């Protein structure tokens, strides 16, 4: 009967028509005003129509109705409503109220547990688990209780109750083991976790005994095999660790086990007989190296052992690291992974040599080895992809050596560049699209970029830097034409296009990479925000909304995934899932995406009333940050994907750092762009004290951290601080606002284009960024003017007049820039960026002009079109804005 009454509502919800569902709810409630299910479902429907305050009030009212929870429909409606409202405690109260009617309903008890689990309310989760164990005989619930205790203890480790909880969990597991109820690897992992949190390593070792009760479970789980070796090392049972590592390595070729074998041996070396101490491991590695299927691991392990012995002061007891490094390279140089494998050991050996003042000698040695091998490698590169890859790997080692010895001469970085370019782009293997050629092209680009920054890193040489980077772009695009699938070429191309202020082409390449879902968190930073800086607001907003939708979906779905871990009894996932959830919920990129979305929405033009209303209604509470909350943000942005050839601590040779078009947004940026919407809100609501406080905070960020913020954002932020000063002066109607108004107008004017343009540098440097910032600031200034009018402050007229004049000037100068960009930039690229000079890049220019004409034309067009698109967008913005 109840279902028949509710069916029209359910049909409407299934048809995704919440408005109709609302009508059906109201229709039913007119006939039966106290119908609990209709009220509960109406509460949920209200959440779907954005009427959250009404939804909350109704939900709480239904919850307080004693008999309401007897109905399954009411329970479901109300739990959905509280879930949508983000009220997990109230959701749990729905279930506990329902349990008052059916106290032995196992499903309801499970729902209480899962609601607490998915919302990480560990205390309630524990209590629910206790109830489940008391009332129902299911071994699974013992583990739910154990896991709840563990999570509770981990969540508040300093809490006195934590130790009690862990001991109780341990006892429950011991009983389960004794009763034969520990049957799966997942349950074993929980047991080990409990002991690990209590630092009971000896006991963990006992549990993991190869002859013990649980040995069969461990043997089938490679991770546990490795974990056992680790534990033996941590408990200083080095002999047993060595035995376990050897047994593990005999069964499988696993790098983690090699590392632990080496660690156990090094920890037990007798300094008086270092050679003898390592003779067994050396013999093992030698034997395994002779087995073709595991030669790579064993050979690399030999390098790792020798390097570690050298670092630990045992000299060449396990062999000379440099000899072994070259032995490895000689054997595996035809594999693309060779350089990545060996790079860390070359760097570690070089670093350790510093103790003996031998770093120069180490580099000289490596250089001599390179010189011995390079000619033959170049000669035979055309014979197969393997031979070509061997040459690429040697070139990568050469790159590293130059960085390690601090090479700052650009011509040294560009020596033989044409040889590399020819092989990568015009040779027979290149025409056959061999993968190694694509790698060579990337390497050549990396050299060109490195040389460019070394030669023209100073501010005064920026125009020449841009010219050099343009040539690098031509090489990258040529490489992309030959091998569309090489994503590293594309990543560098995105970076360089943005560096030269060319958003449209950068965005097209970014889109071709099909970056989606979790990659928005890790790679979104490559493009997000750059559109706004370069006049392409709508394009950036598209990405912002995709990003916001991703985070919203994650937030609503992740709790379900945590819940499913309990259903599937794969408890080892819980801590991992919780950590992942925390990481994504509180991440730098998450915050940046939301700030960019807010910023883009603030930029949308509308009538005076609309613009003021937008800021009046803005939710600025949820974006407030403290130092503590900023410090808790996780930075998951992936910068390692750019495949650097040099160690991170060599900043001058860090291409990822060098090619950043602007500083990456960090805490200061997030805080600044959290304050801007708050300031706008307080201004339109005439909340003077709050406005002054927030403005001072914003000014302090700029004063202390101006290096951490992009220059164009500084223009905007300083302009907003000036705006606030003007507004406050205006509210004191005794004084004129001329000084403040002039300062604000100057902040905009100074960043408009000048009258004459003769250099591409106008566009490729900060010109477009500063212009976009000026346009954005003007939009905010319009809101100021509308707020002054709405609040009947006399300064509104003066501000309106000044902005109107400003707009006329802007339209004129931006129009002129648009015309010049359209007519002149393509020919200027030839004149200013490709002409043969006598600089080190002449060879590169010659190469691209002679052999990559089509690409040069395409890149020229891409730059020119991108700039024109940006300028046109900005012009459109000015045309729309009217005071």
């Amino acid at each position, binding site marked *: 009967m109840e279902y028949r009454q509710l069916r029209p509502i359910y049909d409407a919800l299934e048809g995704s028509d919440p408005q109709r569902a609302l009508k059906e709810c109201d229709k039913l409630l007119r006939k039966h005003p106290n119908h609990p299910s209709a009220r509960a479902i109406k509460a949920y429907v209200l959440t779907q129509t954005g009427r959250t305050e009404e939804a909350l009030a109704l939900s709480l009212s239904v919850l307080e109705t004693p008999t309401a929870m007897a109905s399954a429909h009411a329970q479901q409606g109300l739990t959905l409503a509280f879930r949508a409202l983000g009220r997990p405690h109230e959701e749990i109260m729905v279930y506990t109220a329902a349990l008052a009617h059916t106290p032995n309903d196992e499903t309801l008890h499970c729902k209480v547990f899962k609601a607490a689990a998915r919302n990480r309310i560990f205390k309630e989760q524990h209590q629910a688990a206790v109830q489940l164990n008391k009332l129902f005989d299911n071994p699974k619930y013992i583990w739910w209780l154990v896991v709840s205790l563990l999570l509770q203890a981990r969540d508040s480790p300093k809490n006195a109750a934590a130790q009690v909880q862990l001991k109780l969990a341990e006892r429950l597991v011991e009983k389960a083991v004794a009763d034969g109820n520990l049957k799966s690897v997942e349950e074993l992992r929980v047991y080990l976790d409990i002991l690990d949190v209590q630092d009971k390593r000896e006991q963990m070792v006992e549990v993991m005994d190869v002859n013990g009760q649980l040995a069969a479970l461990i043997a089938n789980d490679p991770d546990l095999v490795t974990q056992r070796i680790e534990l033996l090392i941590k408990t200083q049972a080095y002999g047993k660790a060595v035995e376990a590592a050897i047994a593990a390595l005999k069964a499988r070729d696993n790098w983690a086990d090699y590392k632990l074998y080496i660690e156990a041996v090094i920890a037990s070396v007798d300094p008086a007989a270092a050679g003898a101490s390592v003779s067994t491991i050396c013999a093992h590695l030698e034997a395994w190296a002779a087995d073709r299927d595991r030669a790579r691991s064993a050979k690399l392990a030999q390098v790792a052992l020798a390097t570690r012995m050298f670092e630990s002061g045992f000299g060449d007891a396990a062999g000379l690291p440099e000899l072994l490094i070259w032995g490895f390279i000689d054997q595996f140089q035809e594999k693309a*992974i060779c350089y990545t494998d060996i790079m860390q050991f070359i760097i570690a050996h070089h670093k350790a040599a510093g103790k003996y003042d031998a770093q120069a000698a180490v580099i000289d040695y490596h250089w001599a080895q390179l010189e011995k091998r390079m000619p033959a490698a170049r000669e035979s590169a055309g014979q197969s992809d393997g031979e070509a890859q061997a040459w690429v790997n040697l070139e990568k080692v050469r790159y590293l050596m130059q960085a390690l010895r601090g090479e700052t001469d650009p011509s040294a970085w560009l020596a033989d560049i044409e040889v590399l370019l020819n092989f990568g782009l015009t040779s027979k293997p290149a025409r056959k699209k061999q993968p190694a050629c694509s790698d060579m092209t990337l390497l050549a680009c990396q050299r060109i970029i490195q040389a460019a920054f070394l030669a023209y890193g100073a501010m005064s040489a920026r125009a020449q830097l841009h010219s050099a980077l343009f040539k690098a772009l031509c090489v990258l695009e040529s490489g992309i034409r030959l091998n569309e699938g090489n994503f590293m070429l594309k990543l560098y191309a995105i970076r360089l296009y943005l560096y030269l202020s060319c958003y449209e082409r950068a965005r097209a390449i970014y889109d071709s990479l099909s970056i989606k879902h979790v990659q928005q968190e890790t790679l979104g930073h490559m493009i997000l925000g750059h559109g706004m800086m370069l006049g392409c607001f709508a394009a950036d907003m598209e990405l912002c909304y995709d990003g916001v939708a991703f985070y919203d979906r994650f937030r609503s779905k992740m709790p379900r995934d945590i819940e499913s871990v309990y259903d599937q009894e794969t408890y080892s996932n819980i801590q991992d899932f919780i950590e992942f959830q925390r990481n994504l919920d509180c991440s730098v990129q998450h915050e940046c995406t939301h700030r960019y979305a807010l910023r883009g929405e603030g930029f949308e033009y509308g009538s005076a009333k609309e613009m003021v209303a937008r800021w009046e209604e803005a939710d600025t509470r949820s974006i407030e940050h403290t130092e503590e909350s900023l410090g808790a943000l996780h930075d998951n942005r992936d910068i390692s994907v750019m495949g650097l050839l040099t160690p991170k601590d060599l900043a001058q040779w860090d291409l990822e750092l060098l090619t950043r078009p602007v500083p990456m947004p960090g805490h200061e940026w997030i805080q600044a762009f959290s304050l801007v919407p708050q300031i706008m809100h307080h201004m339109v609501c005439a909340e003077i004290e709050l406005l002054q406080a927030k403005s001072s905070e914003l000014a302090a960020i700029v004063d202390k951290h101006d290096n951490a913020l992009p220059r164009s954002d500084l223009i905007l932020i300083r302009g907003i601080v000036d705006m606030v000063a003007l507004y406050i002066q205006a509210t004191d109607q005794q004084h004129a606002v001329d000084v403040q108004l002039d300062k604000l107008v100057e902040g905009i004017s100074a960043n408009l284009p000048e009258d004459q343009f003769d250099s591409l540098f106008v566009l490729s440097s900060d010109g477009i960024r500063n212009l976009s910032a000026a346009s954005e600031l003007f939009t905010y200034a319009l809101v100021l003017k509308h707020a002054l009018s709405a609040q009947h402050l006399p300064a509104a007229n003066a501000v309106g007049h000044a902005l109107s004049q400003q707009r006329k000037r802007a339209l004129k100068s931006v129009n002129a820039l648009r015309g010049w960009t359209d007519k002149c930039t393509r020919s200027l690229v030839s004149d200013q960026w490709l002409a043969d000079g006598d600089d080190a890049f002449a060879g590169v220019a010659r190469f691209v002009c002679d052999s990559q004409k089509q690409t040069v034309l395409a890149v020229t067009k891409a730059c020119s079109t991108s700039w024109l698109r940006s300028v046109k967008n900005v012009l459109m913005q000015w045309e729309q804005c009217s005071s």
Partner: protein
Amino acid sequence: MSTIRRFRAMDMLRFNNVNLDRYTETYDLGFYLKYMASWPALFTVAEAPSGSLMGYNMGKVEGKGELWHGHVTALTVAPDCRRLGLARGLMRGLEDASEKIHDCYFVDL
């Protein structure tokens, strides 16, 4: 040569060098989490000595009776880690886990 271990949720923040390859699909988060939650022993990753991820294998078990089997949902190796026998190693791991942990009769694609 690599460390082959269970895939963890946090690995999704590090797999761009594998997933940017144009033949590798990046699924919705829930898809990966479901496989981790349901069949953790069949979702493994290969990690290089340098710490970067080299490739991964997603599998599950399904079927009834004698058709109870392991299934390879996705197997991918980063472009610069190919021709090392990595996929073979990941598959061997999936076959072992299907047999020893899930007691399957066979594995299919």
